[in-house]
């Protein structure tokens, strides 16, 4: 099954892409995708699926858009 991964801020330079389509297996979690991207769960990344905050153990579904942000702020 396929998902879209969107990357933001410093993660774009780190991964070298703004977004990518990924083939994942059934029952793959957000943490599994992070491993493939070589991103550490320990970095306090903010992860959203289809715009909703989701934790690392969230099981992804076909067609999901996973957005990954480093810790950021502004305002």
């Amino acid at each position, binding site marked *: 099954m396929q998902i879209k991964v969107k990357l*933001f801020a*410093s993660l774009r330079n780190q991964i070298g892409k703004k977004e990518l389509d990924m083939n994942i297996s059934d029952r793959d979690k957000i943490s599994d995708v992070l491993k493939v991207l070589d991103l550490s769960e320990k970095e306090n990344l*903010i992860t*959203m699926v289809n*715009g909703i905050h989701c934790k690392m153990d969230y099981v992804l579904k076909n067609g999901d858009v996973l957005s990954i*942000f480093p*810790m*950021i702020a*502004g*305002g």
Partner: protein
Amino acid sequence: MNGWMGKILRINLTEKSVREESIDLDVWKKYLGGRGYGAKVLYDEVDSTVDPLDSRNILVFATGPLTGTTAATSGRYSVTTKSPLTGTVMDANSGGKWGVWFKKCGYDALVVTGKSQSPVYITIYDDQVGIKNATHLWGKDVHQTTDMLMETEGKGVSVMCIGSAGENLVLISAIMNDKDRALARGGIGAVMGSKNLKAVVVRGTKKIEIADPERMKFVTYEANKLVRAHPITSKGLPEFGTSVLVNIINEAGIFPARNYQNSQFEAAEKISGESITDQILTKKAGCWGCIIQCARKTKTVNEEGEGPEYESNWALGANCGIDDLEVITEANYLCNKLGLDTISTGGTISCAMELNEQGIINTGLKFGDKNKLKEIIQQIAHREGIGDELALGSKRFSARYGAEEYSMQVKGLELPAYDPRGAQGQGLAYAISNRGGCHLRGGYVIGTEILGSPRMIDRFVSVGKAGYAVRSMDLGAAIDSMVVCRFSTYALNEYVWARLLTAVTGESYEPEEVIGIGERIVNLERLYNLREGFSRKEDTLPKRLLEEPVKTGPARGRTVKLQEMLDEYYQFRGWDENGVPGEKKLNQLGLEGNING
């Protein structure tokens, strides 16, 4: 005296008199300085009979005990006045270097009263104070005024001034310092304009005494390490500036577009912090002594300048349906030169765009019409054509056409860039802010609801949000009174601030006392607003946010559940159901002598 300089400067522009006063240390210990001191003076000296543009209104420019010290982000000062836009207490604070230069003149605060017959500017060089003719500066923009004053007064000065907007009593005008730093909100530029005060020029050489330099050195070292290590203050803000928020807020479905008609902007990426860094950034910059460096020096095809910051970028961009980063950037430059609050300017223009779209009045302004943006900003500052009406802000403008529901404001102050229908706590925060629709006075609940700082909470839930708002409000009020930057709070907390305050002043501050000072300030501001006639019914939100569910995106179907949060908030504060602080609370805060309601 340590931390504080020990003196206040009072200038009456009607009498052209200058007076020095020693500070009442008990008051400064209780309120610290900055916003807290401003609230105290405004409460004591400006009652409900004073029109904000009357000569009896005052401007309190105040620094705090940490201003100009080695404490992180301490290049700040604040101003407090009664707002001509909202009628509430209004404080605003700014960085750059003016606050530090002023404090080094030997003063903690400058209180300006009265009204000059003709335009003047004030010079303060240590204890040499002058009131000089500013006729030749009237009509000049902020950059021209600053350059002219640096030419005549000497390059080592710092200039705070108004542009055409403040001169023309535009109710959404700002006061600017060091060219591009803004005391932005609530039409405070018009208060300065109403006094015929064009500028305040400062240069100070005095030393800020530190009670315990050794301890200060140690705590500064520790605090700076934390700021340099935290991902937000060491990486996110310096690398991408405040506009780094555009994408995350848009992805979360709470990035308002077209006067809050939409909660996502299809072209967010084009105006994001990432795009600013890629396309127009020439240099990172920062306020005096700051190690974060979140400001942006930028360049378009035609011009160079500063910004846009997140809020300005949104207000002049997405909120007006405009996706051209160069146009937004130049509009932001123009607002800085004319001395306009970018949030209220964008919020008022977007309101005029919607009124046009709804067929209520032909304003000639359409969403996405980037070619007219700079022209309409000029018209607002100079009060020409439709700009004369927009100069009143969106609430008064829309009310003229019986269409106030299209004005996205609270208490008359245009809302910032987070749609609270998808972040309930932020909705409460907008409603309860003492200066009206603002993300920094009613609590920056977005921090915890969206950004996970200090921890992530469920943004769609309304129950239990009051506590988060209160904590953010109270710490924020203390921060605004020290005076340091809100961004430092991502890395530092009240434990660090208490130790810094203790080292600087020699007074013993405990962490909970720091929060308590913030609580005192918020309560005094509330008492001020109550005395001005505000009550629960003004602690509300635009109808759209309460009744119109979000149409698409992650927050689809949601409105703000305000009333239940408001009840919880008043209870949490120890206020009655109308939002009036109870006697017990006032006693606890040492505010017992003040009128209740």
